[in-house]
């Protein structure tokens, strides 16, 4: 009975496969940023309740809002803007203080939303959410 000696794999070929696989991984790693693959949610996704679907913020309203200092009253903001497009879920960042959030799309750039945060009757601040 003839027994073949076990075939020896050529180490050089193995190294080649490893290098090829490694190179492919390197290319994928360099070209693909997974953070861009999984897009963040849009502003509409974070809405809890639509209040006024036609609500937008004009340039004039925005410039007046940006001049309202933090800690001013909620009424001071309400005098400038009408009802928001939507409300976001209430959130508590500071112990014992519930924050309300409202969002307004910009009339001149609907992809950008102005989000305002109130704590009780106090205006705490704003930010812009950019839709992807």
């Amino acid at each position, binding site marked *: 009975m003839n027994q073949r000696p076990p075939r020896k794999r050529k180490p050089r070929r193995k190294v080649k496969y490893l290098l090829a696989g490694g190179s492919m991984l*390197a290319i994928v790693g360099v070209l693909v940023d997974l953070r861009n693959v999984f897009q963040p*949610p849009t502003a509409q996704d974070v809405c809890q309740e639509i209040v006024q679907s036609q609500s937008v913020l004009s340039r004039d309203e925005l410039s007046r809002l940006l001049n309202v200092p933090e800690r001013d009253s909620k009424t001071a903001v309400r005098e400038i803007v009408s009802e928001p497009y939507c409300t976001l879920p209430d959130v508590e960042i500071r112990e014992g203080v519930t924050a309300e959030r409202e969002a307004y799309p910009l009339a001149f750039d609907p992809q950008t939303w102005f989000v305002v945060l109130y704590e009780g009757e106090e205006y705490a601040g704003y930010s812009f959410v950019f839709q992807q």
Partner: protein
Amino acid sequence: MQATRLYFSSRGVLAVLLLICAGCARAGDVAPRALQIQQNWQLQPGSEIAGHRILGGLGDVSIAPSGGKVYAPFDGKVEPHRDDCVVFSSPEVPAYLLRLCGVRRPKLGQVRQGEAIASAKSLQFAALRRQPDGKWAMVEPSTDVLERTLN
């Protein structure tokens, strides 16, 4: 044979280095975030006393995360701050920032809610609220935001 092996191993090392550098470039894209804190206490995380490093100061909540991980409490952004501190901000939560110190291997840039953003054995957690003069005041963080950051 020896020369061939050396050639391939050096190419392998080069490929690994390229991968590492690609990762470094992405992390390096995020510029450090400077903060002007209203409570100008002398001792801050990163300060030193007689050669001993201060891990947390007044206003920081010291936590030992049981899983050793820190998570994004909202969709937002992680920016380097100084030493082993990062700043977390979210456009969904205006007027607030979180300063997280004692973190290792932070994931800088845009992150999703619930995503692991760093490791920490001893986390120094500070919640900061924006003031009308542009400074940031330390406030007591809610248990809700702490839970979001730890689970």
